[in-house]
């Protein structure tokens, strides 16, 4: 059985979950714009967004009481989300050629 979110973590959980998605969006946006306009500075922002994503994902995992095997899965998902915009960009280029 899963361990529910603690009462005192209630608001933090919603906040962390929203932050995960917004940070993922920020990462995807800044990475794509960096590639589109060939601006290296935007890649730093993408790195920052990914950093926020990493913190928020592990924060969410902590608040959701995800331990052991689940923390490994969380790490794998994080790596997957890191690669996703890169792969999708390559797919865009390949399919538009």
């Amino acid at each position, binding site marked *: 059985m899963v361990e529910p979110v603690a009462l005192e973590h209630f608001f933090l959980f919603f906040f962390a979950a929203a932050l995960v998605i917004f940070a993922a969006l920020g990462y*995807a946006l800044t990475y794509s714009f960096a590639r589109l306009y060939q601006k290296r500075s935007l890649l730093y922002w993408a790195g920052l967004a990914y950093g926020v994503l990493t913190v928020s994902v592990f924060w969410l995992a902590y608040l959701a009481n995800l331990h052991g095997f689940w923390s490994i899965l969380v790490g794998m998902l994080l790596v997957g989300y890191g690669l996703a915009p890169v792969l*999708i960009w390559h797919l865009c280029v390949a399919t538009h050629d």
Partner: protein
Amino acid sequence: MTRPLDSSNLNDGQKLAVKYFVVAVILFFAQLVFGMLAGIQFVHPDFLYGVLDFNVNRMVHINAMIVWMLYGFIGSVYWFLEEESGREIAGLKLGNLGFWVLTAAVTVVVAVYLLVQVGPGNDFTRWFINEGREYIEAPRWADIGIVVVMLIFFYNVAVTFSRGKWSGIAGVLTLDLVALAGLYLAGMFYVTNISIDQYWWWWVIHLWVEATWEVLVGCIMAWTLMHLLGVRRKIVETWLYIEVALMFGSGILGLGHHYFWIGSPEYWLAIGGFFSALEPIPLVAMVVHSIYDSGVHKLRNRNHPALAWVIAHAFGNFLGAGVWGFMHTLPQINLYTHGTQWTASHGHLAFFGAYATINIAFFYLAVQRWRGDVWMGANLVGGWRWKWALGLLSLGVIGMTMALLIAGYEQSFIERAMGGSTWSAYFAGQNHPWFVESMVWRMIFGWVTIAGFGLLVWDLLVIGKHEVRPAETLLEEPALVHG
């Protein structure tokens, strides 16, 4: 000089589509009216009590939403069927018959909902009055009618394509229509075990809406992008396959997040949680791809209102389905949030973002052709109307979403987490100032939404009427120079 709506500009499939669009708009209005009545009853519980009860208003509100969106999708497919297949629609008379049967059935079902609000729970009720299952309350005779009409729709599409040209869009669409008719059957039988019954009920609610509808929207979007932006067929079809794969990969087992608390085996907690976490991936793909496309096209298009609604679709889908969905989808928090106004908050933004927006975008494409491919680009005569309609509808829905979010947070905290879901905790949650004030704000933003709808209808009726310029001609898209 004015340009009237002239049906001689349309092929037979498009003439049939227009009928579907007209009923879709009427049902859209019904959705808003009954939603407002239910919203008023949250603030003034005595309003229409005993005449038109809350449960009836809510039921018609949700049923009208499902049906108007379905009408919009069916109409959109009929709209592009002849152009996509390169031949005349097969079984047009049958298609017209299907339209009238479905429309008559919808009218009778709603009339019965309103006239027979209370009755015994027996087989007669199930067959002729109300099936009793939330969201799919239509009685059994109407269920059968819906499946028959879906099969007619499938016949029109499959036979037209098989006699004409097959394409990637045609293949995905035809297979999806099999699922559209087939999955509805899962909601047409009863078992006495409530957990098993709910298990199959969710197949209709989740897989019908979140899988088959999403694929249908993918096909409609693929065709729309070719005609709106001039995107090459090879590109949209490749991306249609990618999106369908991503959507099915995460969405089918994402169904598990509905199985958390219905008495299903415990492994659904892990499956539902994990695949729900994957569900935002197609949305991330959508973000990256749309930025790539904006770099290729510089947003050059032949219909500004339609493109604006497509952009609203991208944002609305991301926020409504992605952010609002993920915030409460993991079982550790869903234990408290499921069935509260949190769900309603997510539902309002997700349905608007994922489905209402793309239907409205298509209405604008249809009106453009109906007026003889009139100009709908920059400096459009009366262009303020579509912008205000977009703004008011979006503001209204986002306002309702935020109000419901606060109410849902309060409910899940006070009623569920602190009060332990007892009867007294339920009332404590319902009477809390946060909840009551949120309902007032929801009602106010409901009126904003209705104002936006009024403006939208006005605009659809007159847009392009005073334009003399023809629609912009698009060149086939170039590749991005640097990648």
